[in-house]
């Protein structure tokens, strides 16, 4: 076990920007992103991997940043909610969540958007059952999930339509 207070230099690309930082080896990736880089769109709800609010992408794969150490991101590419889109330029998934009322208080929403992003990259044409399965690791206390499933379906359909029209 590494001693508390031992520091290590890491190099990590976050949302396309390369950062070199010295971090405590016990620093969580969620704390690193929020406190060191100021990327506070990644929320923390339970600190033990149940709620999914802290979900981010590492090399395209959705992971819980509250269960990951900052040093584990060394040499890898991280995408947070801030890297998906902005209020001025919403990603289609974000647009769909807005249109279909896939959010209420909004605190869990970044985690859902990231999970949906990773899921749709792997499965662009999912069934309802597959969406439910894929997003069952994210908790939302406000919406009852109906608006979220509508959002994910809407964006999948839109992406399909775009893909079809692009091949024509």
């Amino acid at each position, binding site marked *: 076990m590494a001693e508390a207070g031992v520091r290590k230099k890491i190099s990590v690309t976050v949302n396309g920007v390369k950062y070199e930082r010295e971090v405590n080896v016990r620093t969580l990736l969620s704390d690193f992103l*929020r*406190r060191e880089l*100021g*990327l*506070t*769109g*990644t*929320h923390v*709800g*339970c*600190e*033990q991997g*149940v*709620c999914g*609010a802290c979900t981010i992408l590492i090399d395209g794969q959705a992971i819980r940043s509250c269960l990951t150490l900052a040093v584990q991101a060394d040499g890898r590419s991280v995408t*947070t*909610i*801030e890297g*998906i*889109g*902005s*209020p001025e330029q*919403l990603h289609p998934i*974000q*647009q769909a*969540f*807005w*249109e279909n*009322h*896939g*959010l*209420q*208080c*909004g*605190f*869990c*929403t*970044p985690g859902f*958007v990231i999970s949906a992003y990773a899921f749709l990259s792997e499965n662009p044409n999912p069934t309802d059952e597959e*969406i*439910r*399965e894929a*997003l*069952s*690791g*994210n*908790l*939302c*206390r*406000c*919406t*009852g*999930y*109906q*608006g*979220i*499933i509508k959002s994910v379906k809407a964006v999948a359909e839109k992406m399909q339509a775009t893909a079809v029209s692009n091949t024509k």
Partner: protein
Amino acid sequence: MSVQVEPKKLKWVGQRVRRKDGPEKVTGSLKYMTDYQFENMVWGRVLRSRYPYARIKRIDTSKAKAYPGVICVLTHEDVPGFNGFGIVIPDQPVLCHDYVRCMGDAVALVAAETEEIAEEALQLIEVDYEVLEPVTDPEEAIKDSAPKLHPSGNIHSRVHVKNGDVKKAFAEADVIVENTYYSPRQMHAFIETEGGWGILEEDGSLTIRCPGQYAFRDRLQIARVLAWNPERIRVISNPIGGGFGGKDEITVQIYLALLALHTGGRPVKIHYKREESVIAGIKRHPFKVTMKTAAKKDGTLVANKVVAFGDTGAYASLGGAVISLAIEHSCGPYYIPNVDLEGYCVYTNNGIAGAFRGFGVNQVCLAIEQNIDMIAEKLGMDPIEIRKKNVYHQGGLSSMGHRVTTSVGTWKTLDAAENCELWKNREKYKANPSEPWKKRGIGVATSFHGIGMGFGLPDYGAATIELLPGGRFLVGVCSEDIGQGNGTVFAIVAAEALQCHIDDIDVIQGDTRRTIDSGTVSASRSTYVGGNSVLAAAPFMIKLLKSTAAEIFKIDVDLVELRDGKLWAKVPVEGKNVLTYADIYQYLYEHRRETKVEGHFMVPKAEKQIGNNVGMPHHVYGYQTHVVLVEVDTLTGETEVLRVVSIPDCGKVINLQGLEGQAEGGAVMGMGYTLYEDTIIERGIFKTTNFTNYILPTFKETPIIETIPIEEAEKTGPFGAKGIGEVVMIPIIAAIVQAIYDATGVRINHLPATPERVYKAMKEQGVIYRG
């Protein structure tokens, strides 16, 4: 002076309107209070009690104070004013000095350079306790032999309502059922735990940024503890990562204020870990309800006798109001002429209970709806028929004996239930379970919930409207957006009244400096009260727009017409005959005139109080019926809710998208309450610690939910709207329990209806799968 819009001409009201705060929330760019950090920020932590009940003999903070990186350590000795808080009776110590009465009690505060140092410093605070035997059963707690947790004893409040002659009615009844129901200690489980930050400003004032449900009352509670003039304190309480009543009471505001006085002007932040939130946060009151209900052969309900015990834990918070609401709603939305209804709110050492969506009605709805189903079964009546027969109508008497003059949609919601596809085809749905060892059932239940504070309690709202450059408007209502989307509701109401596009309305909420007091975000009141407040302010804005236009046109104000969001001169004038809101702003700005107006609204009250019971009755109620389809696994006792039809009567719908969101979220929260959720406390000690052992509904358990709004317009509401936030989670509880009975023949009177409870009940009654 009022705004009149013909229903046919409504442009925004009733549509599906996207949330105003959507883009910021879906991109994570909205900063919640717990997202803030600063270079010079310090971290605060709270030392909690080690026991559920103990006497404090000694507190020694010297080691913690000497620990490197610690900035201050505070105890009860550092509280400058009144050492207590609580919405109604402030009996909860800010920092305990003589006794601790629950595991969530705060004993000391630490501020330190880092969160880790603050955590370590907590371990260095020495507290000597004399451990006392905890009081954990409300019925034991009210006996003379029980230790008194508060000087006034363990009964925090007693509510009693009596009408007619119950004894005679029971003697003459054809059918009587009596049951005892137990309900769980549900946790709000908002995803953002309690937290925020505070700072002592250079001018000597305090700013506290902490999610809450009533900024002005939070400010008052802080001021009382500091012995400060509230005007010196600014509370910013919006945005909020979920509330549901759990942020109605003070959370960390006072701790932040106390610490901020000792950090030399550096901002101080507290953000609870989930495990601290579980222990320190308020919960839903667990109830024991014994209910005896009688009917005539034709299904007419004639008598109801209720004794309810609510466990409020160590402190009052809103416990008295919860038990009062429970009793007011304990007979359901029916007319029962003979009633004897008694409720006790009791102190124990089981954590702290307080406000939670539904506010006591969830617990009693289970009881009355189950009793009615049992009566219907005994009489061979259809469950919807018996309900339709007994509901009160607008202008009729409720079981409280009060005439309900406002809109009542119960009958229509029941009629919609009877005609919905799920109910009509219920035999077909039940006939095809997914596995041979699973059984399906369908249940229906109805309920209601008061809007606003009820009789005798102050209940008012206020809104500001400011004309901005470019002809936009800033609408200010203090009532916070806790997720339900009331900010978008206020924008819709304003856009409708001011004839402008919703994108031209900005909304500000939850700030004691920038908005005026509009009361709480609780009691399903913010659409009704806030919407009416915006409608009260709008005519003043219209007057300002018109009179300014008249001045520019150099004509009489009566000759100015507001049409299609523009101001027209009805007679020939020099120059152009039409002005935009932007023109008006520019003119007012150039002449250095005020561009802001305000409007106020007093919530109308029922004519007569019920007995001496504060808050009883309400004047306006929302109504709701649920139909559910469940599938029960007879091998495991596991219940799955497959479909829900939610039929709310919230009056006129302001934002259809918002209503559906509330109906869906409420249904799933009600499902969690019925099937999974319970904060387990044994002998005063929390066994539930986090989401690993507090089971919340996920995407996988969520049913398919259909919402059918019944718009029974209420003439006192904004465009006919009432409120809906709470009732949407209530009848589903009884409907699921009834559906489990329909599927298996077992009645579960002790919630949550966990697989263990359902399986045990099935086993006892011999309901097992024979392949």
